[in-house]
């Protein structure tokens, strides 16, 4: 028994001592030559443009008071979270009206189609030979010998910035992953399997100017809160109900003279949606151009990221937008495209609101039978 305990303890310590390596996995020259022309598969977006918010959780505080404590904190959390989650959903609803998921998917697919190389013989290195889409919800699993691109679209807490993240992987049974890192002792299991290439590309939109709270804006804020609290028949919540308490709390905050990020988002989400989403579409075009260009550049280079390197400025565009390659930590090797002259501090919360139309669609998709990816 003592031997078993010692062995488990030793294993636990050994697990803790594993040297961390960046998430990014570069290809080497032999792998690049072996892959050559390859297809790109876009994983269809299911959530569309989501809106982030901060979810509160006081369950740990109530846990020491037993069932009563749990019930009290659950009610408190429900009241505190009701307003921000409803606002986030509403912002996502407004955006979904001008930017349905189908348009997001088509737009990115077309950008990659623009990269297809049809010349014979193809140029050396990795090039795009064809582009298709896949619905991961109904066809889960890894697609062999294809560059898989999965994107997420999230508005910041105050909706001033749109963040687009593309997670790109390439896996091929004929080209296995060989870790470029050396480890003391055995190679960790995670470094012996999985995709041969992996990286993340993050695009931040230009930052919308944050409005100043004026009496007129405050009046519009109050009106907006009451509107969103009404039920389908247009009736305000009944006094004493949780919905009434949540609305009152929201109204109190609206009248306190402070303009919170959640309140700002009510107005800025509309800026993204106005003119049939013109601003949103312009940013999406810019993000997709960055993603398609840098995915191919990165797949054709062999630089191995270091956990303790330095961030490199890769490119500065005419409008001051910068593209950087992260130098340190788990994100080392990933690319970030940021706008110039940012002023307001962006936050992305720990929860997202998804448009009702997307949630309904997801519900239907989940009920359909699944097939495995080939």
């Amino acid at each position: 028994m003592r031997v078993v305990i010692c062995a488990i303890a030793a294993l636990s310590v050994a697990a803790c001592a594993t040297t961390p390596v960046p998430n990014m996995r570069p290809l080497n020259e032999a792998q690049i030559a072996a892959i050559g022309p390859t297809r790109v598969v876009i994983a269809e977006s299911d959530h569309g443009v989501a809106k982030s918010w901060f979810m509160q959780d006081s369950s740990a505080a109530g846990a020491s008071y037993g069932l009563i404590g749990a019930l009290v904190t659950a009610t408190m959390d429900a009241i505190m979270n009701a307003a921000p989650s409803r606002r986030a959903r509403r912002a996502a609803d407004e955006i979904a009206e001008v930017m349905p998921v189908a348009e997001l998917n088509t737009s990115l697919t077309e950008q990659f189609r623009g990269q297809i190389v049809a010349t014979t013989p193809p140029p050396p290195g990795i090039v795009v030979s064809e582009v298709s889409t896949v619905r991961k919800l109904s066809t889960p699993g890894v697609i062999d010998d294809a560059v898989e691109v999965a994107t997420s679209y999230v508005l910041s807490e105050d909706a001033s910035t749109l963040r687009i993240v593309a997670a790109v992987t390439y896996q091929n049974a004929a080209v296995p992953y060989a870790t470029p890192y050396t480890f003391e002792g055995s190679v960790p299991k995670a470094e012996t399997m999985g995709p041969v290439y992996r990286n993340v590309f993050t695009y931040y939109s230009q930052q919308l100017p944050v409005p100043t709270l004026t009496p007129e804006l405050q009046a519009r804020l109050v009106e907006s809160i009451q509107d969103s609290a009404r039920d389908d028949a247009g009736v305000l919540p009944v006094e004493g109900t949780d919905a009434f308490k949540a609305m009152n709390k929201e109204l109190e905050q609206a009248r306190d003279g402070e303009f919170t990020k959640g309140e700002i988002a009510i107005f800025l989400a509309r800026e993204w949606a106005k003119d049939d989403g013109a601003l949103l579409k312009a940013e999406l075009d810019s993000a997709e151009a960055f993603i398609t260009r840098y995915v191919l550049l990165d797949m054709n280079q062999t630089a191995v990221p270091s956990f303790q390197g330095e961030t490199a400025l890769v490119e500065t565009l005419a409008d001051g937008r910068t593209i950087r390659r992260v130098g340190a930590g788990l994100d080392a090797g990933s690319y970030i495209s940021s706008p110039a002259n940012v002023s307001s501090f962006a936050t992305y919360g720990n929860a997202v609101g998804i448009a009702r139309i997307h949630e309904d669609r997801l519900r239907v998709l989940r009920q359909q039978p699944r097939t495995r990816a080939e």
Partner: protein
Amino acid sequence: MGMRGRLRATLLGSLAIGGLTLTGCTVKPPAYAMIGSKEGGIYGYADTVTPDGGRLVRVVLPATFATPQMAHDFWDRRALEICGHADYRKNIFAAYRPTLRYDHYGGRPGDFNLEGLLYCDGQTVTAADSAQPD
């Protein structure tokens, strides 16, 4: 030890614990110092030279007791130190607060992170000038 002695010991013990607790709660404003230095610790400023002769200046300040304005002030102060004059160009490309998680799923805004490019214009910046932690 008599009753009076025990009371005195209890009182002294309580005062000591109270004092220690209060010391623990003492709030210090973030020091203007280099990240990695004794004064700054994990907070403060850091900068590296970019290939085009500029500087990449980064400021990190704690989520509590710091403000957005303080982060911008630190950045400008560092820029002034590097350039030696206020006639510099800056391009702040990142201002964000990563999410701090607590309990099970709760979250709140984390540390203030401010990053940007600095160009002193007309003044050559060399790698030797780059700030290094002590």
